[in-house]
């Protein structure tokens, strides 16, 4: 079957005007999403991963503006094309948000309206966008609650968010997202605020709904380990740029960028009894201040001289693998991944094999 491209982001640049500086939060992002596939955008806080998807949803905060680039949405059913960057906020809201692209937020404790019943919050979207009659909307909302695994759905409809646990609330948020039959689901750190035991259940739920409805999913996360099992493609962001991307095998088992090495090394691993959990040294760069060269260079112990002069372009690393690091330049010295990471990658591969 031919892959249908549903969302394509090209050369996206977004900046925020604050009282004392202009912050260039997104500096040339290129990303594609195909129907039924899953992409993870990974990065630290402030790397621009949330900003990217907020632009897609038309919910950037008011001091943010898209300076360059395009976001194109192609409806896989009708073939209609929506140039999101050119559309007014009103247009995005009435044609894209909720109906074609839905979003799940990080903290289910705060992302539901505390004074509105769950039923009403689920029905709101369909009543609003499709003028679904009340009876019909109620029936569908109840079905959605069943679908996301909330028992006693009829009674739950009349309950308020504070009567539900965190995991259940996140299920409700998922039900709200599914209310208008979207084609794309954006999950912004969907499990970060949840207990570890609940995390995998929520991920499984999203995965099973994705299969059932042939949804495309974008995960936004700072934790590669959580999503590795459920995504097809990974894009690693740093300081507003994608610095490494490719299939999950390419990025996860053959990482090339020193920043990705750091990210992978900092996942806690119970199988290894290491003294100390690895963390990437230093802090993310302040994008409000001018900088020269690769913004990761000051934290990168493999940095070359050129890293401090010029930002690296995206190098091809075979297949779909792209890496923005001068280490991939043919003239660069050969640098091996740290041995501890190498051991880890081997273990992870074996672990995945054991599960298959």
């Amino acid at each position, binding site marked *: 079957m031919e892959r249908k491209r549903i969302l394509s982001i090209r050369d996206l640049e977004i900046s925020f005007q604050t009282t004392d500086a202009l912050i260039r939060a997104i500096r040339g992002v290129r990303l594609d999403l195909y129907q039924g596939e899953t992409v993870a955008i990974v990065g630290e806080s402030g790397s621009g991963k949330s900003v990217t998807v907020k632009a897609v949803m038309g919910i950037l905060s008011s001091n943010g503006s898209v300076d360059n680039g395009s976001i194109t949405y192609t409806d896989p059913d009708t073939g209609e094309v929506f140039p999101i960057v050119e559309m007014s906020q009103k247009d995005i809201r009435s044609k894209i948000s909720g109906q074609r692209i839905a*979003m799940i937020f990080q903290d289910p404790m705060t992302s539901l309206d*505390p*004074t509105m019943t769950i039923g009403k919050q689920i029905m709101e*979207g369909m009543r*609003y966008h499709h003028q679904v009659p009340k009876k019909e909307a109620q029936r569908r909302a109840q079905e959605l609650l069943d679908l996301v695994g909330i028992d006693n759905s009829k009674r739950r409809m009349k309950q308020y968010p504070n009567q539900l646990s965190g995991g259940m609330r996140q299920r409700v948020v998922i039900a*709200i997202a599914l209310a208008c039959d979207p084609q794309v689901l954006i999950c912004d750190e969907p499990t970060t605020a949840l207990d570890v035991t609940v995390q995998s259940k929520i991920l499984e739920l999203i995965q099973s709904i994705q299969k059932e409805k042939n949804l495309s999913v974008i995960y936004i996360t700072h934790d590669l380990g959580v999503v590795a099992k459920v995504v097809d493609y990974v894009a690693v962001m740093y300081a507003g740029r994608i610095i490494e991307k490719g299939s999950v095998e390419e990025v996860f088992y053959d990482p090339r960028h020193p920043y990705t090495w750091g990210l992978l090394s900092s996942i806690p691993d119970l199988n290894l009894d290491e003294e100390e959990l690895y963390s990437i040294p230093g802090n993310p760069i302040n994008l409000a201040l001018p900088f020269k060269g690769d913004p990761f260079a000051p934290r990168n112990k493999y940095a070359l001289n050129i890293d401090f002069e010029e930002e690296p372009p995206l190098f091809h690393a075979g297949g779909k693998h792209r890496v923005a690091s001068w280490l991939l330049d043919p003239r660069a010295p050969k640098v091996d991944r740290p041995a501890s990471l190498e051991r880890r990658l081997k273990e992870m591969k074996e672990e995945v094999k054991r599960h298959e």
Partner: protein
Amino acid sequence: MARYVAQRLVIAAVTVFFILLLLFLMLELMPGTPFNDERLTDQQRAVIMEKYGLDRPILERFLKYMLMMLKGDFGISYTLNKNMPVSFMLGQRVGITMILGLQAVLLGLAVGMVLGIISALNHGTWLDSLTSLIAVAGVSVPSYVFALFLLYVFAFLLRWLPIRYNPTDPGLSGVLPVISLSMFTIATVARFLRSEMLEVLGSEYILLSRAKGLHEGAVIRRHGIRNALIPVVTVVGPLVVNLMTGSLVVEKIFAIPGLGSLFVQAITVNDYNVVIAISFIYSVMFVLTMLVVDLLYSVIDPRIRLSKGGPA
């Protein structure tokens, strides 16, 4: 719920009882008696005091008065309207004060809400600064200053509105008193709603409802204002108190024959029964407002409503 209401009513009754006791003692400590006429000899005064039972010990008088009050008898006026039953005196005036107060509360809430919402939605712009300025002025300038100012500008200079209040046909003459009484309410509600609204607008559930694709007006209306208004109910109680104290002076300025002006007169001439009766009305009103506010709050906020019975 019924048990809770009953409990609160008992507490309210006890509160009112102690307020009255305290007031009784304070009146006793005030210099002079209701009969300060210089032409009276000490002997004559003693006779009058005995006639009204004022020679008895304070506690006895207090208990006797409380018993009378329970029967709806507030005693008679000693000085202002000699021997006229206090309940009759108040009956004529309660209505005027209540109507003006109610109008001021409603006006204050309505204008305050509009200002608060406008300034929150235009956060950081000149509109926000302007409403903040009005709000700060409204909170810090006493209502009688507003009253005099409004009186001077609109009644004296411009002559748009009458200076004196006309109790038989209020009409336009009620406009200035109501505005001056409501200034504090306007300001408090506007400030409070603004900060609540800003907090709500920054919340994740507003982001979620935007992501649902609701247009901005619906987001603000259905999720923003709704949630921001709930805490505003809590400030209504103190506002009513402020209205009462404000009415004391404002009624005097506009020559309104209401409770407030009578209260001031009664205090200056030691008309004990009148003072006690009006204080009684004010305290009951205050305690009841607080009770209603608490109950209302638990009705409109599902988080409080449900937490009482434990998680469902």
